[in-house]
C-alpha cells in the first residue's frame, strides 16, 4: 500500500499526472478489500448553498467521478444526484444514518442558517410532514459520522451567504456542532482538494490540519508564495487593469493573504488556468471571512508596515528593491508578509471604507502618524535611489549614507513604538 508520505507527495505534485488515479484508486480498493470489501458509506448533505461545490466535485479527473462513486465510496445521499426523491429519500437517509452509525463519511456543503430556528433552509420533509431544517440535519448526521468534511467556503467559514448583514443568520458547520470538522474551503472547492482529502481520510484518517482545520496538504502556502508573477511584484511590474500582464496586486489581488495551491495546481480537471493566469485578481475565495474581508475585490490590500518601511500599493515595487538592496529584508519573505498582512486583515477591509468623521482620537493620530511616515518615505525616496546608485557605481557619498542610516533608525524606532502601543491596547 502507498505510504502516507508517498500519498502526500502525490497530492503536492498537483495530481496532474495519471498517477493519483492509477495509484490511489487501486490502493483504496485494496485497503477496502482488506476490510472486507466494503466501500465507506458516504452522505453529501447540501445546506444553504449554490451547489457549486458539488458540481466542482463532479469535475474530478484523477480519479474520475465513476471511480470515486463506484470504487472508492458508496454514495447514499446527494440531493443533486440521487434517484430517490421525497419521503423515499428522507426515509433512506434515516435508514443509512441508523444502520451505518459510526461508519459513514459526512460531507456538508453550504452554510447553516440559524436565525428563527433555522426555518430559512430545509433539506426536505419527513413523510409525516415534519420539516427538517439544515440545522437539524447537520446536528443529527454529525453524531454518527466517522469523519465530517466541510466542502467549500460556505460550510467551512460561512462564505457569501453569511456576509454582512447575514439575513439568515448563517454559520459555518463547525460553529453549530461539537464534532471535529475538516474544512476544505474554496468557492467552489477544487475537485482535487475535496477528492484528495477524501482519499486521505479513507486511507490514513485525518490529515495534518492548520489552525483553521484545513489540510496543510492543499492550503499550506499563500498564493503569493507560489505565484508565477511573483517576480513582477518584486520588480514593480504591475497590471493597471484586468486583462493586463504583470502582478495584479494593485488591482486587488488577495494572493498575499490567501492560502491555497491554485498557482501550481490550477483549474480544473486538466489544470488549464487559474484566476491570476486569467489576468484577474485572486479574490481570496478560500479564506475565512470571504467575501467581507476580501472586498472590495478590485481594491488592493491595506498597507503593510514592516520595520523600516511601509509597503503600500504605490511603493510596493520600489520599496521591495530598496529593502533588498539595503539588506533590511534580504528576501521579501512570506513569513513577514503573511504574518503582518494577516494581522491587518483580521480587522478586515470592510465593505465600506469608514467615514473619517467616525475615527476616534487615537485612530486619527495613528492615521496622521502613518501618513507622516509615508510622506517621509516618499521624500526620502529619491535620496535612497541616489544611494543605490552610489552603491552600484561604487561612488559612495558619506553624507547621504549617514543621513539615510539615521532616517532608517528613526523609522524603526517609530514603527516599533507603534507596534508596542497597539499590542498594549489589545
Amino acid at each position, binding site marked *: 500500500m502507498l505510504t502516507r508520505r508517498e500519498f502526500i507527495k502525490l497530492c503536492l505534485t498537483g495530481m496532474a499526472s495519471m498517477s493519483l488515479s492509477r495509484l490511489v484508486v487501486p490502493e483504496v480498493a485494496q485497503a477496502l478489500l482488506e476490510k472486507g470489501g466494503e466501500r465507506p458509506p458516504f452522505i453529501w448533505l447540501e445546506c444553504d448553498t449554490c451547489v457549486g461545490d458539488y458540481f466542482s466535485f463532479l*469535475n474530478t479527473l484523477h480519479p474520475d467521478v465513476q471511480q470515486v462513486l463506484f470504487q472508492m465510496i458508496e454514495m447514499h445521499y446527494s440531493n443533486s444526484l440521487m434517484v430517490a426523491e421525497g419521503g423515499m429519500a428522507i426515509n433512506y437517509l434515516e435508514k443509512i444514518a441508523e444502520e451505518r452509525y459510526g461508519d459513514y463519511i459526512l460531507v456538508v456543503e453550504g452554510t447553516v*442558517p440559524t436565525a428563527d430556528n433555522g426555518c*430559512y433552509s430545509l433539506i426536505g420533509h419527513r413523510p409525516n410532514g415534519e420539516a427538517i431544517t439544515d440545522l437539524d440535519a447537520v446536528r443529527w448526521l454529525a453524531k454518527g459520522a466517522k469523519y465530517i468534511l466541510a466542502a467549500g467556503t460556505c460550510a467551512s467559514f460561512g462564505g457569501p451567504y453569511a456576509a454582512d448583514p447575514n439575513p439568515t443568520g448563517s454559520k459555518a458547520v463547525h460553529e453549530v456542532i461539537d464534532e471535529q470538522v475538516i474544512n476544505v474551503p474554496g468557492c467552489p472547492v477544487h475537485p482535487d482538494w475535496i477528492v484528495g482529502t477524501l482519499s486521505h481520510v479513507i486511507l490514513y484518517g485525518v490529515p495534518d490540519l492548520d489552525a483553521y482545520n484545513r489540510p496543510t496538504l492543499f492550503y499550506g502556502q499563500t498564493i503569493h508564495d507560489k505565484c508565477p508573477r511573483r517576480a513582477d511584484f518584486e520588480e514593480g511590474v504591475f497590471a493597471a487593469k484586468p486583462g493586463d500582464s504583470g502582478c495584479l496586486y494593485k488591482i486587488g489581488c488577495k494572493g498575499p493573504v490567501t492560502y491555497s495551491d491554485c498557482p501550481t495546481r490550477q483549474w480544473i480537471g486538466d489544470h488549464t488556468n487559474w484566476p491570476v493566469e486569467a489576468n484577474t485578481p485572486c479574490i481570496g475565495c478560500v479564506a475565512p471571512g470571504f467575501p467581507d474581508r476580501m472586498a472590495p475585490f478590485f481594491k488592493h490590500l491595506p498597507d503593510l508596515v514592516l520595520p523600516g518601511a511601509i509597503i503600500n500599493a504605490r511603493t510596493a515595487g520600489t520599496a521591495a528593491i530598496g529593502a533588498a538592496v539595503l539588506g533590511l529584508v534580504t528576501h521579501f519573505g512570506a513569513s513577514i508578509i503573511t504574518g503582518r498582512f494577516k494581522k491587518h486583515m483580521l480587522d478586515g477591509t470592510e465593505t465600506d471604507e469608514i467615514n473619517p468623521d467616525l475615527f476616534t482620537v487615537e485612530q486619527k493620530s495613528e492615521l496622521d502618524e502613518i501618513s507622516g511616515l509615508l510622506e517621509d518615505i516618499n521624500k526620502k525616496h529619491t535620496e535612497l535611489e541616489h544611494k543605490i546608485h552610489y552603491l552600484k557605481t561604487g561612488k559612495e557619498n558619506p553624507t547621504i549614507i549617514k543621513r539615510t542610516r539615521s532616517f532608517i533608525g528613526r523609522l524603526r524606532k517609530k514603527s516599533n513604538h507603534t507596534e508596542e502601543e497597539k499590542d498594549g491596547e489589545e
Partner: protein
Amino acid sequence: MAQKIMISPVTRLNGFWRLDVEVENGKVIDAYSSGIYIRGLEKIMQRRDPRDAVYLTQRICGICSSAHAMAGSLALEHAYNLEIPRNAVIIRNLIFGADLLQNHLRHFYFMALPDYAEGPDEPPFIPRYKAEYRFNKKETEKLFQNYMESIDMSRLCHEMLTIYGGKAPHNHGILAGGASVHPTADNIRLYLFRLEQVKRFIDEKMLPDMELLIEKYADYFQIGSGPETLLTYGMFPREDKRGEFYLHPGVISKDQLQPVNSDLIHEQVKHSWFLDTDAATDIMQGATNFYPDKEGAYSWIKAPRYQGQVVQTGPLCRLWVAEEYRHGISTLDRIYARCLEAKKVADYLQEWVQKLEPGKPIYQEYEPLRDAKGIGLVEAMRGGLGHWIEIEDYHIKNYQVITPSAWNMSPRDDNGLPGAVEQSLIGISIADFKNPIEIGRVARSFDPCSSCAVQVYTPQESLEQYII
C-alpha cells in the same frame, strides 16, 4: 375523494424544492410548488463596490454561474454606458456557451434520464420508484454508459470555460468592461480540441438517446404543457450589432410575437413568505420582509408575472421565438428543445471561436460613475434572467435579480393563478399513488433550479422604462 401527495425534497435539481399535488380519480387536480430555502444575496449586495457584483452574484447558482456573470456585467455596462470590444463579446459568448453545454448535458443525463430509465442496482440509483420504465435491458445499459461519459463531457465544457474564465464554476473572465484572457492561437486550439469532443458526443450519443426517449415516451408530448405564453430575453449578444442577440428576445402568445418590455414585469407575494406590502408593480419597489408564519403562503419564491400573465421560459421558448422549433409545448418538447439547442450552440461556438482576433483589445477601461442605474436582461440556460443595479455614491444602493426559475417555479399570484410548473402538473395522470414518477418527469423538464429561484427583493425607487 382527493388524495394528497407531497414530494420534499424534489431531488436531482439545484437547490431544495417541494411539490404538493392533489389527486382525484388518478388525475392531478391541483398542484403547489414551494421553494424551501432562502439566502438573501441581494440584501448582501447592498453597500458594496459595484464591480464586485459580477463575481459575487455568480454565487447565486453553481450550475449557471456564468449566466449571472453575463447579466451582472450587462447591467453595469448599461449603467456606465460602456461599449465593450468585439473580441470581448465573443469571448464572453464562448464562456457562457461552454457553461450552457455543461448544463444541458448534466440536465439531460443526471437530472432527467433517471425518471425514464432504471439505473444500476446500487446507490445512488437505488432506492427508486417501482414504475413503468420502458427501455429494454440493452437500451438501458447503453443509456447509462452515456450517462457516465456525459460526466467527462460536462467536465470538458467546464474546462473550455476555464480557458477563458480562469476557473469554473464562478469564473473570473467575464467582468464589466469586457473579458480578461487574450485570445491566442494556443488557447483557441485548446478550446476547439475540447469542443470537438463535446460536439461529437452531442451528435453521436445525446441526440440519438433523445430520439430513443421520444420513441418510447411519445405520450409525454401530450402531457405537462403549462402556460402558453413564452418569454425570452435574447441569448448571446452579437459582436457585430450592439444590443442584438443571436437568439432573439420576445414574448410570444398564441404565435403573436411582442418585444420584451421590462416595465410589464410585476411581482406578487400573496402566497410567498413575505409581508403583503412587499408586492411590487414595479420590480424595484418590492421589499424584503421575511414572514415565515404568513397564512396562505407556501414558498420562498415570489410570483413574477408578465402583464399579469403566467409565462414559461427556457430553451423551448428561445427556439420557438427563433422559429426553429414549433412542434408543441409539453414535457418532451421542453427536453427535446434543450437537446436541439445544445447542438445549435455547439455549432455556434465553433463558428465564433474562428472569429476571435488575437492581438485586438478585450477590455474597455472605464471610470466608475458616482450615481447610475442599469439593467441586464439576458438568457440563462433555463430561461430569462434579469439583473437590476442602482448605484449611489459609488456603492450599490440596490441590487435585484429575477431568475428564470422564479418564472417557472413560482407559486400562485394574487389572483390565485398557479405558476408555470403548477399549471403543467394539473391534469396529468398518476398511475400509482405510491410511486408518482410522473410528477418528477413533468416538473424536471423545466430544468428547475431552486438556488436561483429563491431570492430577496428590497425596497427601491422605480427605474426608467427599459425596452429591448
